[in-house]
């Protein structure tokens, strides 16, 4: 069972949980670094990203209490519960009249069962993605998803060993394959102005640095922007100029690109670097 199938199984489980327990209004599963694993059908991805953005600070500063094991938020009309399950977190939003014992029983039985099954089918599932640490990328709310399951290439330090009787010949090493491009989920923001090229989008320094680090200093000139409807556009990429958009998980795009992708400001898109 690969990650996609596992995520699909978890998504279905979340939907089923809502069927048997209608008092659960929203449910989603994420990793500590902010990567969304699965969400129920009722919860838009943008809402999940916003919720994780709100929780981001707590996870970031939870070292003082040795990490987060759970969060319970009580409101007049409902509550949010974040529970830790292995290395994943499940967030559930319930109505105020929900029977919490029942909700707790349901989520603490079903989700761990599905996770256990997923692990049995593929022990590396959901664990082998080398996601960057929060401090490295500090993605807010652009949660990065590395699809590559290949281990990072060790720097080639193979020394030339002298073999008796053989002339020393320089070895031609094959070029190390590039890692798969990371996919960043970013929120579309308008980019306007007289001198703005219509084929260029802008992302923040964190994202560009993360890519540069991954591709060892290669300059990323182009990105592929993909909507959740599957529409894609290849654009040039530059750094965001406005400080207010730094670290917000924003991709600024001109109107023309938005028209091509059939999206508007505020919608979530996937952005990945083009490395050739």
């Amino acid at each position, binding site marked *: 069972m690969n990650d996609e199938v596992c995520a699909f199984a978890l998504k279905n489980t979340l939907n089923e949980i809502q069927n048997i327990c209608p008092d659960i*209004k*929203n449910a989603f599963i994420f990793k500590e670094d902010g990567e969304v694993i699965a969400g129920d059908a009722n919860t838009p991805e943008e*809402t999940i990203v*916003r*919720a994780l953005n*709100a*929780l981001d*600070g*707590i996870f*970031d*500063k*939870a*070292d*003082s*209490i*040795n*990490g*987060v*094991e*759970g*969060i*319970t*938020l*009580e*409101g*007049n*009309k*409902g*509550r*949010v519960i974040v529970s830790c399950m292995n290395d994943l977190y499940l967030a559930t*939003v319930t109505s*105020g009249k929900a029977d919490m014992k029942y909700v707790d029983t349901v989520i603490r039985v079903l989700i761990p069962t599905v996770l256990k099954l997923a692990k049995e089918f593929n022990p590396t599932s959901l664990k082998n993605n080398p996601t960057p640490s929060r401090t490295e990328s500090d993605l807010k709310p652009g949660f990065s998803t590395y699809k590559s399951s290949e281990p990072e290439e060790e720097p080639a330090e193979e020394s030339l060993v002298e073999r008796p009787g053989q002339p020393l010949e320089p070895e031609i090493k094959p070029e190390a394959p590039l890692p798969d491009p990371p996919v960043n989920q970013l929120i579309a923001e308008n980019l306007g102005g007289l001198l703005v090229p219509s084929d260029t989008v802008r992302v923040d320094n964190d994202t560009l640095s993360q890519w540069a680090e991954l591709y060892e200093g290669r300059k990323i000139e182009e990105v592929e922007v993909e909507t959740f409807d599957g529409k894609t556009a290849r654009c040039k990429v530059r750094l965001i100029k406005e400080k207010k958009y730094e670290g917000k998980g924003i991709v600024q795009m001109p109107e023309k690109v938005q028209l091509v992708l059939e999206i508007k400001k505020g919608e979530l898109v996937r952005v990945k670097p083009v490395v050739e």
Partner: protein
Amino acid sequence: MSKKKKGFHDQVVEAAQPIAVEGTTPANSVREGLDEVKTYEGVIGYIIRSTASAAIDLKDPTKIVDYAILSSLALDACRELTELFDLGDAKSIAVEGKDVKMLSAVVDGNRISIFMDKTADTGRILRRLHVA
């Protein structure tokens, strides 16, 4: 002449100099409640912040800044999530760590956070502070 608005970190540092700083006192009843709560089994200490003052009473002074930042972040998250999911007025947020639990709420306009062992009775604390 307009006054420069103080950042949160300035306030934390200000509050962190002496362990308890008292300016314009927060609502006395809340302070009384917190002082009583502090005697409960497993309670490590508390932080209370109003618009004009802050008071911190923690057994371990080295944790003051970390706890104050976490407290502020938790209360901000509480407000944002209640708005996002339309949960009405936020009552409280509890963040459970591996060792320590933090319970935060806004009581009579005061942002309070109570730090405790995981075994401490949060229900009793909430009832005492009239949050439940």
